[in-house]
């Protein structure tokens, strides 16, 4: 059985600021990032859906100690965003003054863009990653 939506396809779409997920035809749940089966009911009758890319911040952290090779990026902010369609995805927040990174971020409305991770020695090539900015 083949994946309906693989990482490669998801990443290529994200490079065009399009967020792809899966809609379950059995229970209606959206799964994003995509998987082989529905996140809720493990159903396999899934169709590819373009999500709005809009949502709100549910949690965050500002990181000062990076993995090897990412030192030039610190400090950066990692977040989980609850999408309008329900699922949460992990991504970054656009650059923001460090004193603005606090609990006030939770609940703020954001919209999706992307940034490219070129990959490192331990990656299988590049990966587009969600990068969010505030909805004004």
């Amino acid at each position, binding site marked *: 059985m083949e994946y309906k939506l693989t990482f490669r396809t998801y990443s290529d779409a994200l490079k065009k600021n399009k967020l792809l997920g899966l809609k379950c035809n059995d229970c209606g749940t959206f799964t994003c*990032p995509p998987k082989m089966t529905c996140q809720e009911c493990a159903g396999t009758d899934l169709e590819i859906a373009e999500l709005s890319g809009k949502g709100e911040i549910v949690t965050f*952290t500002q*990181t000062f*100690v990076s*993995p090897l090779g990412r030192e030039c990026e610190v400090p950066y902010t*990692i977040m989980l965003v609850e999408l309008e369609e329900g699922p*949460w995805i*992990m991504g*970054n927040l656009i650059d923001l003054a460090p004193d603005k990174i606090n609990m006030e971020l939770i609940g703020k409305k954001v919209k999706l863009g992307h940034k490219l991770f070129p990959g490192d020695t331990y990656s299988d090539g590049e990966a587009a990653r969600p990068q969010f900015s505030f909805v004004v």
Partner: protein
Amino acid sequence: MRRVAVVGTGHTDFVFNSPKTEVEMLAEASMDAINQSNLKPKDIQALYCGNCLGDFSEGQGMVQSYVANDIGCFNIPASRFEGACASATMAIRDAYMWVASGFYDIVLTGGTEKATAMGTPLATRTFAMFGDSRYENPAGFTFPAFFAMEAHLYSKKYNMPLERLKEQMALVSVQSHQYGMNNPHAQFHKEITVDKVLNGFMVTSPLQLLDCCPFSDGAAAVVLASEDVAKRLIDKPVYIAGVGQASSGKMSSQYKYLPRLRAREWGVKQAYEMAGLGPKDIDVCELHDCFSIASIIAAEGLGFAELGKGGELWEKGETKIGGKIPVNISGGLKSKGHPIGATGASQVHEIARQLRGELVDEGRQVEGAKVGLVDTLGGDGVIVDLILKTD
């Protein structure tokens, strides 16, 4: 299923920059465990070994076979378990099942790790491999970041001001360092204060340096035997009364439950049901305090406190010797150290010693302890829980 006992354990010092190899460290701990069991290497029928990152830290894979050979357990089946920080606990659970089933009578299990050889940047990179490599790591994900996001989520969801949560978290680290002072194998013998924790270097907000366990080198080993064999070998067998293990997907896929970690709730439920026991029956617990917030979340998941109230256990001193549920009297991962492939075996070693009443001289004995719980978390995807018990 037969009853299975811990008949001997061994534990190296947990240190920064060990001069020994992963194989040497586990071989030393294993020989101590075998000797304590009144056995010889030829009596061991199989080895179940936790090891996570030897490929990266030493360029050494397949440590399990070399350990078996080094200690004179020639040609026995040897298997390596990789479940991030829960690797050794996974190995012990499997070793338990092979003896319980009757397939083997005596097996050696344990784990070894030499994380400090990698240095902080590579160690941080390799630990991040226990997150989702394609959908989450590209954001610069690290393990401290996982628990940092858990802390902010916890504060919001349970409506606890971050300042109070941070103080509770600091108390977790302070207690661990206090007990680590009395553990001769611990990496740190240094008392700290709440002020020191709250003024430390920011690793990833809100986690500061002393909210985080260190990178460590070390090994620990455990010999398991069937009940009838155990009774012939030693006076005070400690039995494995319940085991549980569960898994989960990438962090974002756990969105319906976070900051709860459901794998723990499933894992410990299996262990409690198998043992016919519950949280109130546990006399002493070693839980996975990789980060201070992780202890608070673990205490709730294991049933010692209601959701949002785990930190109160530390505020009220309930986690100390003499409290409702003594936690991490070894010093925990925070002070004892966290050589990830060995941690679960170290926790079992500690609980077995508590239940045998061997820690009086070290000033860390929970008096009269008869039932102990081991809880180990690996990445965000594996949690293993074991209940140990004396008759």
